[in-house]
């Protein structure tokens, strides 16, 4: 029951919002709906934590033998928790932003939430594809309707990229459907014994969609533009949750389904991932726009997750799992700060800002903590993830070059300190500028939102066990399927 509720609540509320004309009411309803989703999610992880509540399996499109099959296993729980935790926080922390036709804005946001939840729970290929698109389309409208100056051009780019990816994925899923004897069930997919040529073909078809979403170098050029041009609330969804769709896709629909091809192509993709990490980190050093800076830093961080998947080991996979969650909440923190700055000063240019520490000490302290998580300081959540991933990459038995990847990749932890601290220095330290001399500190809602994130950052950083144990079984299954230790 829980999976269905997690989809239905945002879906129905989202639709209903189109009928409500007042922005303030729409916003409150949307916020309430996300809180209810969160409550249900938490109930699903505690009192209703049993198979009967966490699974839903009914026939769907009979002609295709496709089933409406949703499961909340460990990995789904983690990502649905991230989704249901992020949405209320996004709405709450951007409470003072105003939108033309606000009801539609929030309606589309909730539709995206429904799609995302579906993606993370679907155990049927067709259903997965359906939700994948359901998540994508509202975002396309959100960017093109409420974005910045160059929104149309940028949205088209974003759309073409993701649409092409989805198209390939659909073909791949259909191929799998026939190989599985007319079934879209994930459980049938992972039992297939495909020839290496078939695996190879399907691998290529599927991987493009995921690579675009994360994004993996060189499929990334939509991302900095889209993050920059979208309204910040949308950028938050894109980076905190949507980027995880790609990583999740690799973990659920790629590696276990075509394990031999994943293994065989491992070094190629690992190399792309390393190159992308370094590439993005170097570019991040020279960014002046805060949004682009965070976008590039995100490409570098996600690159590490991709690397850990293509140079797999148990430690690395567990690292990816926890880091998907961590990256989500950390980047939310970054965006909240960016949003405050943009709303208050009307600019995101680092060169026009400065001296905020004198004017907004609370914001500064909170930003510094989030920034430390961004550079994976020990005792913050990201350290756990990065440590386990690097350790996994180094010791991976799937590749001969694990050490090389780890050494090349570790350079990015130095570069991340360079670009993150440069941003902290130029925005928060030093003298004030004409734009920032009348700055005021953050409102209560932003303070609370950031405080919640910071508590999460530190708790996970000190005691990661609860999250790691959620996904331990799934990580082991993926490795077993790839015949790795």
């Amino acid at each position, binding site marked *: 029951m829980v999976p269905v509720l997690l989809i239905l609540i945002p*879906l129905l509320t989202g639709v209903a919002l189109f009928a409500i004309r007042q922005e303030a009411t729409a916003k409150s309803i949307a916020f309430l709906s996300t809180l209810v989703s969160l409550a249900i999610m938490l109930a699903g992880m505690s009192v209703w934590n049993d198979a009967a509540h966490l699974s839903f399996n009914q026939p769907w*499109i009979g002609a295709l033998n496709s089933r409406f099959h949703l499961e909340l296993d460990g990995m789904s729980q983690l990502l649905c928790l991230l989704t249901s935790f992020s949405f209320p926080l996004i709405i709450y922390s951007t409470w003072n932003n105003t939108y033309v036709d606000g009801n539609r804005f929030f309606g589309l946001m909730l539709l995206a939430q429904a799609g995302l939840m579906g993606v993370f729970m679907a155990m049927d290929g067709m259903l997965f594809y359906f939700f994948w698109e359901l998540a994508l389309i509202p975002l396309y409208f959100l960017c093109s309707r409420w974005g910045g100056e160059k929104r149309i051009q940028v949205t088209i780019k974003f759309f*073409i990229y993701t649409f092409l990816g989805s198209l390939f994925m659909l073909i791949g899923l259909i191929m799998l459907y026939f190989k599985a004897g007319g079934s879209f069930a994930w459980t049938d997919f992972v039992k297939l014994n495909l020839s290496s040529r078939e695996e190879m073909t399907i691998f290529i078809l599927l991987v493009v969609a995921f690579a675009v979403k994360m994004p993996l170098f060189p499929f990334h050029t939509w991302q900095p533009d889209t993050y920059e041009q979208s309204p910040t609330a949308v950028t938050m969804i894109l980076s905190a949750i949507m980027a995880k769709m790609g990583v999740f896709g690799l973990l659920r629909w790629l590696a276990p389904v075509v394990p031999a091809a994943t293994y065989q192509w491992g070094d190629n993709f690992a190399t792309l991932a390393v190159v992308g990490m370094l590439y993005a980190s170097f*570019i991040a050093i020279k960014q002046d726009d805060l949004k682009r800076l965070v976008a590039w830093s995100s490409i570098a961080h996600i690159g590490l997750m991709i690397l850990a998947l293509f140079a797999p080991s148990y430690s690395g996979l567990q690292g990816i799992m926890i880091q998907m969650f961590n990256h989500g909440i950390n980047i939310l923190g970054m965006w909240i700060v960016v949003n405050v700055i943009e709303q208050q000063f009307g600019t995101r240019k680092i060169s026009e800002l400065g001296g905020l520490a004198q004017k907004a000490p609370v914001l500064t302290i909170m930003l510094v903590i989030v920034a430390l998580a961004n550079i994976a300081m020990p005792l913050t959540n990201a350290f756990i993830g990065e440590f386990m991933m690097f*350790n996994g990459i*180094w010791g991976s038995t799937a590749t001969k070059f694990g050490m090389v990847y780890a050494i090349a990749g570790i350079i990015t932890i130095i570069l991340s300190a360079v670009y993150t601290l440069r941003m902290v220095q130029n925005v928060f330290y*030093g003298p004030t500028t004409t734009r920032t001399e009348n700055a005021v500190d953050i409102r209560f809602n932003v303070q609370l939102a950031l405080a919640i994130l910071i508590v999460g950052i530190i708790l996970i950083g000190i005691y*990661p066990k609860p999250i790691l144990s959620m996904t331990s079984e799934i990580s082991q299954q993926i490795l077993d399927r790839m015949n790795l230790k």
Partner: protein
Amino acid sequence: MNNIIDYVWLVPLFPLVGFLLNGLLRNHVSKSLSGIIGSGTILASFVVSILIFMQVKAGSTGVVTLFNFIEFGKTVIPFAFQVDQLSSLFLLIITGIGFLIHLYSTAYMHEESDMHFARYFAYLNLFVFSMLLLVLGSNYVIMFIGWEGVGLCSYLLIGYWFKNIEYTSAAKKAFVMNRIGDAGFLLAVFYLLSKLGTVTYIDVFSKVDSLSGQDLTIITLLLFVGATGKSAQIPLYTWLPDAMAGPTPVSALIHAATMVTAGIYMIARSNILYTLSPVTQTVVAVVGIATALLAASIALKQNDIKKVLAYSTVSQLGYMFLALGVGAYTGAVFHVMTHAFFKALLFLGAGSVIHGMHHEQDIRNMGGLKKYMPTTHITFLIGCLAIAGIIPFSGFFSKDEILAAAFANNPLYYVLGAIGALMTAFYMFRLYSMTFQGKFRGTQEQEHHLHESPAAMTIPLVVLAIFSFGGGLVGIPEVLMHGGHALNDFLAPVFAASTSKMTPHAIDHSTELILMFGLMAVILLVIILAWKKFSGYQKTASEETGLGKVLQNKWYVDELYDAVITRPVNAFGKGLEKLDRFGIDWIVNGVGRSVQYASRQLRLLQSGQVGSYVLLMVLGIILLFVLQVFLKK
């Protein structure tokens, strides 16, 4: 309390609580309260540390596990503390000297507003907390938490006056340089995990035989990369002199009680790994002696009182690495201890001078201060004698132990080390004479306000002076007093495995005595020379030329790094962005443009209303959902 060791977690807990209290309540506490919180928590840790030290001295050691930090597969990395001779000694140094610095700060930082005063103490407490984690951890990962933690705290404190963009640049530089070292440390941890599946000291050291010589060399070299960052050795030393941007007591904390000793501690802790990899030992010794000489040469020509001391720290750390490189682990730890006393003393003394001179740091504008600041003067002189290595001041014993071990290993090390010692004596007494002797060269206004510092500042100076004087007596060499080296006996269990693998190169007693007192005689000559030369120092307008100019400009190493690393990295980032925009993205946009063209033609058929698209989409979805799922049931 039957066994105080089980309560070792109290030691880091107190500063952590202090950090949280001062940090969260910074807007609500008065200066005196935040000073009491800040200093009191460290004092409490010091008291517990003393009790622990007594227990360890009585022969009990132990590991206290709090919980399992990271687990994967069979690998468990516990959050655990190891109490033994080495860590308990460091606890005393960190909390003891740390407390004196906190106490001193209550007076030194008095001009700050309440909020920033509390912020300062919060950072200071966090610093001590991180350092305590570093030395208490029972495995390399917990050590790494402290390792990066002290890096962070130095960043926060160097950039404490955050309005000044230069200071925050120095802070950033410190963090990034440390990060470079940290990356090396992390790789060593991964190497250990992949070979042994554990990073817990006890397990690693007991399985050391299963590592090949090559493994050991790589691991130890990677760890040493970490040490060069934290302990400011070539090539990562340039952050430390710039770290002077922070308040002076912070410099004392960084240079004496915390942070820079981390690298020494780490290698002393891992001594068996280093003993078994002679290649690394040579590298460590050579880097150490080279750093000692390079930094000492720069110190000869610096005019900022704190800069001289900063380079002297880099140089003294070089000696400690030399000791580690030649296997004199006790000697290195001994020098950490004596150096902590006299360097804390010298920095706090310098702070007292700067306080008295109203933020003047240029020694060319000082002179004759002994008249105005008698306590500062005497204690500073004691510090100088200790660092120069005059018997019976503490530095004599530790430096002598290092040089004797260096001689036994390779006489060239000794010769170079002795040259460094002479330079040390020279620049320290240049500094002393220009500051305290001769005539006052500052402005009249400065002279009018000159005063001795308050008791909260002079008491720590006196305490540190006593230890700088007598602290060396725990390590009197065998040749002077049979059984006089109490420290050696105390630390023996920690270095036992290494000792059994090393072939002792003893030098005979007469050689040792000649080296010891011969060098000291020359040092005394140098001191007299420097004293005479700089007591009558007059300001001149002439600029340095030749080698003097090179030294004054620190061998242009900063400029070199800027040209070879910083600027190319920036240019590379910029170039890549261009490539991205005009290369990869251009291709993509080409596709985009053609689609856009096509869509412009097609748009005529569409209404263009977002709402209607969405409505249709949503209706479709609901229809599908309802029809397929619920009607079929």
